[in-house]
Every structure is written in structure tokens, then in C-alpha cells.
């Protein structure tokens, strides 16, 4: 399930800015542990952000996205009180969805 995300969404002049911080290791699969064994790749592959039911951003990540991924983007529309949700899925099949209220 992973740890909760931090989602902030703020509406201003008809545009909503969304900032997301995700708790995830984003292991590249190229690092070795202390014993020299390769640490298997473990990373988010897909992410979808929605405003209500409407998809406002869809993204695909590779292993080069930093640990604890950060994402900021803007979409037209959105008002105080609306809901914005973000869902991710990783290469091990784990997934998580969190929601925030626009302010």
C-alpha cells in the first residue's frame, strides 16, 4: 500500500495548481547492497491525476524519476472544495490512491 502521498491543490484565476509528493523508493535496479547483491528495480510506472472523475494528467515514469517523486502541474477549472485524486501503480503491482480538496 505504501505511505500516504502529500497532495496540495490550489485554485487561482480559474486554474488549479497541483503539487504531489509521493513516498516511494524508486529503486533503479542498478544499485548493489552491502553484500554486492543487486537491489531489484522497484519504481512507479504509471500515475494518473483526476479532477473529480476527469483525468487531468496521465504519466509514465522510468527508474530515473527521483526517490520520493515530486510532481507539479496545472489544469484549467477547479474550484475550492473540489476533489483532486492521484493514483500510482508500481512495477511490483503495488498501487495507492490519495485525495485532496482544492483550496
Amino acid at each position: 500500500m505504501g505511505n500516504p502521498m502529500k497532495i496540495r491543490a490550489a485554485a487561482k484565476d480559474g486554474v488549479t495548481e497541483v503539487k504531489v509528493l509521493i513516498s516511494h523508493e524508486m529503486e533503479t535496479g542498478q544499485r548493489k547492497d552491502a553484500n554486492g547483491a543487486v537491489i531489484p528495480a522497484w519504481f512507479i510506472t504509471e500515475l494518473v491525476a483526476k479532477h473529480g472523475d476527469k483525468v487531468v494528467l496521465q504519466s509514465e515514469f522510468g527508474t530515473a524519476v527521483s526517490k520520493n517523486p515530486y510532481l507539479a502541474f496545472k489544469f484549467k477549472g477547479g474550484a475550492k472544495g473540489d476533489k483532486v485524486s492521484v493514483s500510482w501503480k508500481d512495477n511490483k503491482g503495488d498501487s495507492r490512491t490519495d485525495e485532496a480538496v482544492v483550496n
Partner: protein
Amino acid sequence: MNNQRRNVLKSGTGAAVLGALAAAGIIKPGVALADWNKAAFEAKSMADTLKALGAGAPVESKDVQVTGPDIAENGAVVPVGVASSIAGTTMVAILVEKNPNALAASFTLPEGTEANVQTRVKMGQTSNVYALVKAGGKFYMATKEIKVTLGGCGG
């Protein structure tokens, strides 16, 4: 991989279809979306990555921007933004030329989402960072060099 399905899913109608599927309980919302573009993410060179993205030879454009620091203190966390002022931009991607796999992330932008996305990427060394943009079926790009100081004395 099934390109046909991929294209459908990535277009606006794709979202609607997905919505219907989700509503019908066939897929979990936000989870079983488009297939991850394995070929593009696992490509090594810039050329192979562009090919896998169907981008061929993108045109350099002043209307595309890569933002980021001139120097990143730590290659593990490099803030990078891509923006495009080309009308009808539907996709933006971040590529790091000297990384083992050039493609870091790609973003599909539905109608109404601004072509301006910021994230943070890993960089193994000083490299050119590319913003790749798709608008009206054509590909454009811009580049910026970001220096990486790897610990030590920052040398």
C-alpha cells in the same frame, strides 16, 4: 506491444472508454491505465528512445522550454520542468541524454491541462536534458545542460 490499443488509451476518447470500464468495475480506476511503454523506457540511446516514442527527429523549438538549475548539487534529485507554448500540446517528456536509459518520464496532457510540468529526476553525470513535446501529431524539443556535482568537493 499493442500500439493500437495504446493509442486509443492515450487519446481523449481513451479516457472516456476507461471511465466506462472503470464504472463497469472491469478495471480499477487509475490503476490499470495505459501499458507502460517498456520499449521507450528501456531504450538506451536518445535515438532509440525517440524511435520507441514514435518521435523520429523532433524539431528544435523556442516554444519549448526545459527548466532546472545550472548545477545540481546531487544527481539523485534534480528538479526539472518542461513547458510548451505550442497550441495543442498533448504530450511532454523528459529525457536525460547520458543516463543509462534516456527517458525519465512522459506526461499525457488531456485538454485543459497546461503544458507545464515539473518533477525531479536522477542524473548519473553532467548531461543535456531534453524536453520532448508532441503537438498536432508533430514532435518538438528543447535542451539544457545541467551540471552535476557528485559529493566530494563538488568537482
